[in-house]
């Protein structure tokens, strides 16, 4: 029995090592090493030490975070994080991450911060703590322009309504379903694919947040002519930068930087640059 166990462990070790070696042969060594030590950012770091922050984002969320051909991200949130980093002289490591596992990854320490259009929700707040909000938006229900039905008719039509699964729009769809509306939810991997489903007729409506929709339509005027906003859902929501609860020092620094940034007239330029203003 002991021999078998040793054999299994050997297999796991060799296998993981093989995988690791391959991946680390293409990534810079600093990028694949797990940098997290418990409480790394809870207090003031040692003097003269380079602060390295691993920044996790969902590369499927224009205009906040999108992938470029060279593997680095661009977007509004990327700019914000870069500005904060520049102010303090931090080094940022970019890590694209799947949206569904991103909270767990932050908790585990694969990531140090998330800034990727992350809405403050009570469920998330139990696991991770947020900075001050830097952007607010409302949820909107969007339909095709040539669809003459009213909002309540669409919600009761039994048609598909597209959302990004796991997003706050997804929660809104569930809330509406619970309230007794009769439609089918179509949860897709990103806001863009959900909007596409609306455009090509596979969904009759699309629940989005204004933070995505506005800039996207500004960038794609041909699409703007095809859709219309039927109404807003609930009160405004806020985006903020997520950190681990114990990383108080980091959060304080981010909050200070965000306050300073948002007071600056450059903030409006930045919003405009990404079509958010």
């Amino acid at each position: 029995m002991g021999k078998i166990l040793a054999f299994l462990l050997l297999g796991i070790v060799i296998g993981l090592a093989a995988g690791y070696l391959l991946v680390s042969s293409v990534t810079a060594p600093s990028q694949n090493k797990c940098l997290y030590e418990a409480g790394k950012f809870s207090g003031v770091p040692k003097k003269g030490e380079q602060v390295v922050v691993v920044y996790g984002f969902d590369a499927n969320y224009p205009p906040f975070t999108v992938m470029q051909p060279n593997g680095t991200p661009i977007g509004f949130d990327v700019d914000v994080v870069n500005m904060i980093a520049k102010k303090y002289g931090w080094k940022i490591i970019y890590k694209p991450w799947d949206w569904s596992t991103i909270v767990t990854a932050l908790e585990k320490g694969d990531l140090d911060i998330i800034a990727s259009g992350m809405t403050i929700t009570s469920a998330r707040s139990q696991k991770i703590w947020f900075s001050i909000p830097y952007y607010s938006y409302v949820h909107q229900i969007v339909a095709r322009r040539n669809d003459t039905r009213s909002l309540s008719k669409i919600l009761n039509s039994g048609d598909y309504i597209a959302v990004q699964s796991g997003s706050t729009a997804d929660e809104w769809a569930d809330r509406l379903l619970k309230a007794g509306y009769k439609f089918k939810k179509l949860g897709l991997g990103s806001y863009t694919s959900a909007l596409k489903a609306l455009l090509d007729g596979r969904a009759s409506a699309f629940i989005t947040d204004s933070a995505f929709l506005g800039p996207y339509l500004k960038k794609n005027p041909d699409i703007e002519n095809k859709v219309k906003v039927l109404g807003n859902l609930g009160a405004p929501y806020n985006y903020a930068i997520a950190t681990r609860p114990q990383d108080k020092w980091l959060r304080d620094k981010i909050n200070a930087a965000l306050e300073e940034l948002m007071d600056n007239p450059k903030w409006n330029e930045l919003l405009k640059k990404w079509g958010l203003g």
Partner: protein
Amino acid sequence: MGFWLEFIPSLFMGLLTTFELVAISAPLGVTLGVALGTARVYGGKVLGSIARAFSALFRGFPLIVTLFLVFFGLPELGIYLSPIISAILSFSLCSGAYISEYVRGAILSVDEGQSLAAESIGMSKLQEVLYIVLPQAIRRAILGISNEIVYMIQYSSLAFAIGVQEMYSVARTYNSLYFKSFEIFSLLAVIYLAITALVTLIFRKLRKRIEPYSDSKAEFIE
């Protein structure tokens, strides 16, 4: 408690969707597989190579890529399919390609004497294939076919990626809302294990019933 009251009914709805996916895709896949397998043996040059290319293609692509291609890619060609239809189409294509392998092998294993005998009583080639070769071949391929269907049940969870609200998709949504990972996913694993065990059992019974009529018992050993 409130969590379970919400989760269990949703999961049950998801289970129904999973069932719907498999119940429609499985017969389609088997039919497609038998047709492709037959075409690969008897199809001649043109039809045969089309069937070969078709099955090689869908066995070479990961199922998840096929799903994305059908749901996100086809609209660029002007073909719009709903998520459920896309999933059913992808599952049928993929399992059809795999099943055609088994059917082809089984057809080749039906011995020459059978077709000679069929010809000797004056059957046409089509009659010979339909009434003599295929009934024997399908019995021989039944183990492979039933394995493919069990795989299909497992891989049906991939439909979450194109927005089908099946079991895994429901579980994933609840996981991102409530973070009760252990409860959610171990329950899901248990359900899938139970379904797999049940379906395997049904197929075993079915094979036992077919077995006495088959001339090759050895192939039924699991």
